[in-house]
C-alpha cells in the first residue's frame, strides 16, 4: 500500500545519493510513472553538481536513462528481500534501457547504476545461484562504466561509445586506476591510456601493475 503523497522512489534515490545506502522493506513498492519526474529533476541537479568535477566538457544530461538506472537499482534492491515474483516476472521488472547508448547516457546512468555492483554482491551473499544476479550482470555488461572493478568478462564489452567522448574516456581510465581494475588495465586497447595517465608515477600510484605483461 503506497500513500499517494509520499514519493518513496524519490526518497530512496535521494538517500542513496547522499548516504550511499538503501533501506529496504519486506514490501514491494512499484515505481509509478508520475513519480519519475521528480526523480529526473533531482538527478539532473545531481548531474550538474557532479559534472563540475568531470574533466573537460561534460556531455548533456539524459533524463530517461538516468531514471531508468534509478528504477533498476531501486527495484533490484527491493528484490533482494521481496520474492513473490518468478524469474520471468523478475526480468519484466528489470528491463534493459530502450534508448540508444551515448556518452551522455553513460554518465547519466552512472549516477545510480554505480551502486549496482554492491547490490549484486549482496545478492551473491544471500544466494550465489540467484537468478537476479544474472539479470543484473547483463545490465552491468551493457553499462560497464558503472561496473569497473566488478568482475566482468572483459572480452564481451564494447568500447566504441566510451572512446568517442574525451570526457567519458578520461573518467573511464581514472576509474580503472582508482579501483585498480587490473583485468581492464591490461587490455591492449586500454593499456596505453592507463599508462598515459600514470606517466612516470606508475610505482607511486599503482605499484602492483607490472610493467611487462
Amino acid at each position, binding site marked *: 500500500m503506497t500513500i499517494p503523497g509520499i514519493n518513496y522512489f524519490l526518497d530512496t534515490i535521494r538517500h542513496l545519493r547522499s548516504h550511499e545506502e538503501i533501506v529496504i522493506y519486506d514490501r514491494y513498492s512499484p515505481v509509478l510513472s508520475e513519480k519519475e519526474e521528480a526523480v529526473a529533476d533531482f538527478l539532473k541537479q545531481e548531474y550538474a553538481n557532479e559534472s*563540475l*568535477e*568531470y*574533466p*573537460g566538457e561534460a556531455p548533456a544530461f539524459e533524463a530517461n536513462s538516468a531514471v531508468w538506472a534509478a528504477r533498476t537499482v531501486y527495484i533490484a534492491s527491493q528484490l533482494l528481500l521481496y520474492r513473490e515474483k518468478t524469474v520471468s516476472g523478475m526480468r519484466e521488472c528489470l528491463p534493459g534501457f530502450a534508448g540508444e547508448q551515448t556518452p551522455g547516457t553513460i554518465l547519466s546512468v552512472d549516477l545510480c547504476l554505480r551502486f549496482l555492483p554492491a547490490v549484486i554482491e549482496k545478492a551473491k551473499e544471500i544466494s550465489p545461484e540467484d537468478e537476479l544476479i544474472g539479470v543484473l550482470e547483463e545490465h552491468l555488461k551493457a553499462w560497464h562504466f558503472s561496473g569497473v572493478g566488478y568482475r566482468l568478462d572483459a572480452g564481451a564489452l564494447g568500447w566504441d561509445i566510451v572512446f568517442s567522448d*574525451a570526457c567519458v574516456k*578520461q*573518467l573511464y*581510465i*581514472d576509474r580503472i*586506476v*582508482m579501483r585498480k581494475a587490473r583485468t581492464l588495465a591490461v587490455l591492449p586497447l586500454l593499456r596505453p591510456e592507463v599508462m598515459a*595517465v*600514470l*606517466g612516470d*608515477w606508475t610505482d*607511486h*600510484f599503482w605499484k602492483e601493475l607490472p610493467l611487462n605483461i
Partner: protein
Amino acid sequence: MATNLSNDISWLLEIDESGVDFLGPIRHWQHLSMAAAGGMIWVRGLRSDDLGNSVLRGIPHARVLYLRGDHLYPENGLVPTKKMPPGLNWRPLSKGLPLGFPSFNHNYFGIGERLAVRLVASTVEASAVAVLLPVETLRSYAIAASAVRLRHLRWVVLGREALVIGTPMLPLPGRSFWQLGEHLLPAGYTFEFPILAETIGRRLCRQAGDRVFWSEDGSCLVLAHADVVPLSPGSIRMTVAILPAGNTTL
C-alpha cells in the same frame, strides 16, 4: 766573622709581565710576595720544598732563580745572570694579582634581544613539494587532467597565482618550494638559523596543519589548513568563476 754566603740564598720565580695571569694557581700561597720591575715579575719567599711542587713547576714561561747577595743565579747555574734591582715594592700575591670579571659572561642569555628572521641561499638539496604558478596555467591543465594526478594535491589562490601543495607534483612550470616542518621555503633558500624553524612555526601557526609560506625577502604568510583545499576540476571551476578580474593583492 764573615758571613757564609752559601747559607744566605733565597729562591725566586721570574716571569715576564705578559705572563702574569699564569701565576693564578699559586695566588693563594700566603708566604709568597711579588714585585715588578723592568717588564719582569719576581716572586719571592719560596721554600726549598716548594721547588718540587708540580703546581709551581707547571707555571709556563716561569724560571726559578736563586738570589745570593745582590745577584740572581739560574737554578742550576753558578754564574749570575743579572742583578736584583734595588728598592722593589714587595706585595703579597693576593694584592698583586687582583681578581676581575672575565670579559665574556657564559651565563648571559640575552632574553630581551630580538632577532630578524631572514632567508639565505642554501646549497643543501631538498625535493620540492609545492609549486606557485599562474591560476590560468593551472586551470587549463587541471580541468582536463586525470583525477588520479589531482586527488592527492591541495591548492590555494594567492593573488593571481595558485600554490599547489603535494607530490607527485603536476608537470607544470612555476616557482617551486620545499618543506621544512610547517614551512614552505623557496627552493634554494633556507632560514638563516634553521634551528629556529620549529620555534618560528609554533609562534606563527594557530593550529595543527597550518603552513607558513615564505618569500625570498623573508616575508611570510600563514596558510590556514582549512583555506588550502583539495585540488579538483570542480574546485578550479568554482574558484575561477568567483575570482575578480585583475586581482593583484595578496
